[in-house]
C-alpha cells in the first residue's frame, strides 16, 4: 500500500494528445501519469497503485487491445478506459468483453471522459476494498492453529461436531472449543459468514469428506 490518492495513467503515442489529456485531468484535480507507449507503461506500472488506465487503441508496435491482454495475463486489475481515433464495433465489443470500463472515440468530450474515469476509479476503489477484505481474512486464517484449520474446513463442509470428532479421533467437547476459537479468530458471528469467508479464501474440502 503506497498511496491512497487515485492516479490516472494515460497511454497515447501522440504527444499532443497526451499533453491535452494531462491538462484536462489535472484541471479536474486528478493525478496523472502519462506514457508514450505500452512498453513504457508496462515497465513503470506498479500493480499496487490505485487508479485507472486511459489507453489509446491505435499505437505502433503494441496497441491498446494487446496491452489489455497483457495486463489481464499479469493478473492486474486496473480498470481501462479506451480512446480511439477510428474505432469500429467489433473492436469495441472485444474491449468491453475483456473488461474495459468504456470505449470512447476521439475527439472526446470532457464530460464523457471524466464520467468514464470516475466509474473506473470507483471500480478500482471497490476492487481495492475487496482485495483488502480478502487480505484480512487470509491473515486471520493464517493465525489459526493447524487443528483449528482442520476443524474449520470440516465445519464449512457441513459436518456435525460428532462427525468431526470421529474424523479427527477426539472428543466432541474438544471440537466445540476449537470451533468457538475459529469463529472468534475469523471474526465471524454465524456459520453462514464463516462459509462465505471460506469461499473467498477458496478453502478446499478435506479429503474423504
Amino acid at each position, binding site marked *: 500500500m503506497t498511496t491512497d490518492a487515485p492516479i490516472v495513467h494515460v497511454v497515447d503515442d*501522440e504527444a*499532443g*494528445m497526451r*499533453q*491535452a*489529456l494531462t*491538462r*484536462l485531468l*489535472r*484541471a*479536474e484535480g486528478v493525478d496523472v501519469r502519462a506514457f508514450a507507449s505500452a512498453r513504457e507503461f508496462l515497465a513503470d506500472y506498479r500493480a499496487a497503485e490505485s487508479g485507472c488506465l486511459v489507453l489509446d487503441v*491505435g499505437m*505502433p508496435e503494441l496497441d491498446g487491445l494487446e496491452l489489455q491482454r497483457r495486463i489481464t495475463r499479469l493478473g492486474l486489475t486496473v480498470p481501462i478506459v479506451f480512446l480511439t*481515433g*477510428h474505432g469500429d464495433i467489433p473492436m469495441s465489443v472485444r474491449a468491453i468483453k475483456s473488461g474495459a470500463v468504456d470505449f470512447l472515440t*476521439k*475527439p*472526446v*468530450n*470532457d464530460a464523457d*471522459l471524466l464520467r468514464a474515469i470516475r466509474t473506473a476509479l470507483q471500480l478500482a476503489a471497490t476492487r481495492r476494498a475487496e482485495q483488502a477484505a480478502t487480505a484480512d481474512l487470509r491473515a486471520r486464517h493464517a493465525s489459526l492453529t493447524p487443528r483449528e484449520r482442520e476443524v474449520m474446513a470440516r465445519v464449512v463442509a457441513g459436518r456435525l461436531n460428532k462427525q468431526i470428532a470421529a474424523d479427527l479421533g477426539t472428543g466432541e467437547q474438544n471440537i466445540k472449543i476449537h470451533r468457538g476459537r475459529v469463529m472468534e479468530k475469523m471474526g465471524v458471528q454465524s456459520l453462514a459468514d464463516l462459509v462465505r469467508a471460506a469461499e473467498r479464501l477458496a478453502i478446499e474440502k478435506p479429503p474423504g469428506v
Partner: protein
Amino acid sequence: MSWVTAIWFMTAGACLTLGVVHFLVWCGQRAAWGNVFFAISAVATGGMAGCELWMMHAESPIEWGVAARWIHVPAYVLILSLVGFVRVYLRAGRVWLAWTVVGVRTVSLLLNFLFTPNLNFREITGLRPISFLGESVATVVGVPNPWMLIAQLSLVLLLAFVVDATVAVWRRGEHRAAVQIGFNMVFFVFLASGQAILSLWGFTQAPIIPSVFYLGIVLAMAYELSRDLLRSVRMAEELRENIALQKQMQDRFRLSVEASPNGVVLANAEGCILLVNGRAAQMFGYPREEIVGLGIESLVPERFRGAHASLRSGFHAAPTARAMGAGRELFARRKDGSEFPVEIGINPVDSAEGTLVLSIIVDISSRRQSEAEAQELRDELAHLTRVTTLSELSGSLAHELNQPLAIILSNAQAAQRLLAQTPPDCAEVRDILADIVAEDRRAGEVIQRLRTLLKRGEITRAPLALNETIEEVLLLARPNLAGREITVTRALDAGLPQVSGDRVQLQQVVLNLILNSADAMAANAPGTRRLHVVTARRDGVVRVSVRDEGCGLPAEPEQLFAPFFTTKPHGLGMGLAICRSIVGAHGGRLWAEPHPERGAIFHFELAALPTPAA
C-alpha cells in the same frame, strides 16, 4: 501547137506559178525572205523563157537583136535573186563577192543598152533557120561583141560565189542543203552559161536556151522550199497539239488547285500574290480578285510581319520544300483582322518569272478545338481518377484530420476548466492556446493538400522540383502507409534539376505509383513491406523510380497501362492509364519493369529544365 512553143510556155507558166505561190507565202510570212528571192528567181526564169521563145520565132535580125537585148533584163534579175537567195536562205557566201557579182552584172546590163543591137553582137548579119525539136527556129549570124565577156565574167563570179557558199554550207554540216541548192545551182549555171557562150561566140549553131537549165535550179529551189513548207506545216501541227496539251495541263493544274481542300497561294520572290484558289480566298475572307496582287504579308498577323519578311528572304536564299515554321504555332490573318491557327507547307517553283513560292495552307482551327476538347476530357478523367485514388486514402486521412481535432477539443476544454478556477491559471492557458493554434495549422495543411488534389484546377505548367512533389505526396500517404506497416526509403538526388509540369497532375502520378506499390505488398509478411522512392538525373532527363518488394508484374507489363485493366477488386483500372497519359502530355514516358531481386519498379522520365546559371 509546136513542141517548142508548148515546152517554153509550160516552162514560163510553171515558173510564174511557182513564183506567185511563193510570193503569196512571203506575203503571209514577211520574215521568209528566201521565198521572195525564190519568187523573183522563178518569175525571172519565166521571163527568160519568154524572151527565148521570142528570139526563136524572130522574123528579122533586128527583131532577134531586140529580143536578145531584153533577155538581159530577166537574166539580170535572176542573177541578183540567186545571189540574194544564197545569202538569205543558205546564210552563206562572201558579201564582197556577192556585191562584185551584182556590180559586174549591172555594168553589163548598162552596156547592153549602150550597144546596138546589144551586148552580144556588134552587128547581126542574118538569121539562119535550123531544125529544133522537129520545128524550124531562128538562130543568128553576126559579129560577136567582145564586151559580152563582162556578162560572162559575171557568170564566172556567180559560180565562184555559189561554190564558196556551198563549201561553207557543207562544212557547217548541212550536207543536204549544200547538195540540193549549192551543187544544183553550180551545175545548172555552168550548163546554161556554157550553152549560151558556145552559141553566142558562134561555136555551135543552136538557139540560146538558158531558161531550160535555170528551170532546173528553180525546181531544186522549189523542192527545198516545199520541204520547208511541209516541215513548217508539220511543226504547226505539232505546235497546235502542244498548245492543246499545254492547255489541258493548265486546266488540270487549275482544276486540281481549285479542288484542293486546302488553301493554295502562289507568290513571287517579292512576296506579291499571283494566284490563289477559292479555298484560300474563303479562308482569308477576301474576294478572290482582291487578294491577287496583295503582298503576302497582308495574310500574316501584324506582330509577325517583320519576322516573316526576313524569313521569306532566307527561304529564297536556299529554296527547299518544307513545312513552314517547324515546331512553332502559326497564325494567319483574315481580312477583318481576326486570326486563325494554320499549318503551311512551302514549295519553291521554278518558272520563267523566277522562283515562285507555292504555299499550301491548312486551317487547323477545328483540329485545335478538338485537341482542346480531348485535353479537357483527359483532364476531367485525370481528376476523376485522382478523386478515386484519394478515396482510397480517405480512411487514413480522416484519422490524420481527427487527431488534431481531438487534441484541440481536449485542450480547449482543459482551458475552460482552468479559466473557471480562482485564480485562473493563465500561464497554462497560454500554452494551451499555442498548442491549439499549432494543431489547427496541422489540420489545415492536410485539408489544403487534399483540396489541391481534389479540385479541378487549370492545368498549368511551371518549373517544379520533383523531390518536393514526392515529399508532399509521401506526407499525404504517410498515415495510409503506416497503417499497412509499409516503410518508405527515399534516395532523392539533392541536385535534381527542375522539370516543367503541373504540380497536381505529377503529384497524382507519384501518389498512384506509391499506392500501387503499397497494394502490391499487401500479402507480404510484416517487416518485409519496403517501398523505395528514387530520383536521379542523366542526359538532361529526370527519372523518378518507385519500387516495391511485392508480388511482381504480370507477364506483359504493358497491359497494366491499358484502360480498365485492374488487379484490384475495387479498382477502376484507370490509374496507370491516366498516369501514362499525364506523363505523355508532359513529353515524358512511364513504364514498368520487374526488379531483378523482388517486386516491380515503375519509372517515369521528364525532360530536365536547364539549370539556371549559378
